[in-house]
């Protein structure tokens, strides 16, 4: 845990008069499965977007492995080793499953840019990830023809193809059936065992409590509690945020 992963200091983002993320300072545990929970509208997704460069924060800093990455463009955040999935799942609908995964290959130099996208070595790598998430038999299908659950798996395969060290998942269990939730959870555990850090936004408490090593609770744009799942569950501030007692 001595190793420094993703950290934010006083991160702030305001939309009009609404402070979506309010001086949020969080240090995620590198090499572990971190969960970010909180009531709807507590700023989790905006926080994600600020960290991954989709939104430029008003103030505060984001650092990854000791380097300041605040306000960098999303592709540079990705190059730094942070991958992400989107809430409600985003894929390239009119591309095949294989192409969806190959799109995450980072070409080097002009020759790399002009090399065939279906370069055998990369296709093999893409197939490996598709097999890992369990949809390699759908390689040639257009992504829009997949079921929602399969699209979620495809998105995960694409994120993994970019080989990120830290993976941020925005509601991986949202809208999928219990069997698939178990499969995704097992996959996250496996990948964590292989050294990848996870930061997961999730509403499914059962999943959060069973999956994560470290939980950060957001309310009104800032972390109000953090710690191991058990201690967070009984924290009075958390109960108040969730139940309004």
């Amino acid at each position, binding site marked *: 845990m001595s190793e420094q992963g993703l950290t934010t200091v006083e991160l702030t983002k305001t939309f009009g008069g609404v402070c979506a993320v309010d001086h949020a300072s969080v240090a995620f545990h590198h090499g572990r499965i971190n969960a970010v929970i909180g009531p709807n509208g507590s700023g989790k997704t905006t926080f994600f977007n600020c960290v*991954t460069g*989709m939104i430029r924060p008003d103030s505060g800093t984001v650092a990854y492995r000791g380097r300041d990455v605040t306000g960098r463009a999303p592709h540079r955040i990705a190059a730094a080793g942070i991958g992400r999935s989107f809430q409600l799942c985003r894929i*390239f609908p009119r591309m095949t499953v294989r192409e969806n995964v190959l*799109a995450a*290959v980072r070409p080097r130099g002009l020759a790399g840019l002009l090399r065939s996208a279906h370069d055998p070595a990369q296709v093999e790598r893409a197939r490996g990830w598709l097999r890992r998430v369990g949809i390699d038999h759908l390689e040639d299908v257009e992504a829009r023809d997949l079921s*929602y659950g*399969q699209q979620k798996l495809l998105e995960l395969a694409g994120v993994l193809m970019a080989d990120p060290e830290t993976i941020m998942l925005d509601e991986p269990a949202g809208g999928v059936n219990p069997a698939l939730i178990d499969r995704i959870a097992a996959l996250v555990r496996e990948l964590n065992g292989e050294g990848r850090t996870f930061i997961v936004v999730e509403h499914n408490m059962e999943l959060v409590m069973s999956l994560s090593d470290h939980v950060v609770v957001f309310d009104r744009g800032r972390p109000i509690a953090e710690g191991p799942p058990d201690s967070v569950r009984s924290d009075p501030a958390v109960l108040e945020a969730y139940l309004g007692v």
Partner: protein
Amino acid sequence: MRNVSKFAALLTGAVALLSFPLWSPNPYITSAGVVVLSYAVLSTSWNFVGGFTGYMSLGHAAWFGLGAYGTGLLIARAGVPSFLALGLAGVIVALLAVPIGIAALRVRGASFVIVSIALVLVLLLVFQSWRSFTGGSDGLVVPRPFPDLLRPEHHVVFFYLFAVLLAVALLAWWTIDRSRFGLGLKAIREDEDKAQSLGVPTFAYKLVAFVVSATFTALGGGLYALWFGDLDPIFQFSILIGSYMVLMALLGGVRHLFGPLLGALLVGIAIEYFKMSYGDTQFHLVATGLLLAVVVLFMPDGVIPAVAGLLQRFRPQQSSIREVTAADLLEQNRSETKVEARR
């Protein structure tokens, strides 16, 4: 087997196209052929941006006009040899497209369409008003590159010059289409934010596609200037030319190498025919508008996918030929039901 028939179709098409000047009944028809081929160059050039990135530029006539006037002015005002002027105009437009692209590509969707239209209108005003340099509405006469050629031969020569430019543009599009760069551009078309989060440097990619597209369009414009020999801002910088490029590409199919070419053949021939039939009236515009409506309503992906889909129905179905094991079949059924359920 499929590759062979594909190659045969390609060869037949190329021979039919390239032999046109030989069987064209008269020079007027040959000149119409040059116009149609120039449309094919323009819409194929447009498709570097429109087809790959999905950014719909309605103002691509800006590059057509700049290429035409760049070439014409270099020859008429600076005495540069014709084809050197054409090349120089291409370079100048490529350089101009960088800052313009940086500004225009900051916005997406409908905003980008408006910006692209604004660009062509601004250029129209500039070229009309700057009479002392551009000749304004009186036009600019571009000296012919081959003064000794008779008019019919002139048409034939330019038909093949446009064919060469088209071949180069198609080759460039094909190279990008199969490359990693092309896959990145297509990812931008599908979901730009998602592409960027996966590590695609979207802005740089879009800018390169934009510059390539502008340059090819400008070369098409320059060649047009050399052929036609007379430039007028109202025609060079017209929204109509820009819309034709879009219409042709959409009609043929923007996801296909030959989509814009096919669209240009269909629309270009139709326009030339309507012009001949309805003469000076503007009815050819109405006819073109109707054509666009039909395309959008019935073939949103263009002619090529529509026809390919139709042919697919007559092909033997995959499962009836291939031997499958029970396990394969089970897996296939399972995935198919999932796919069906999604639909």
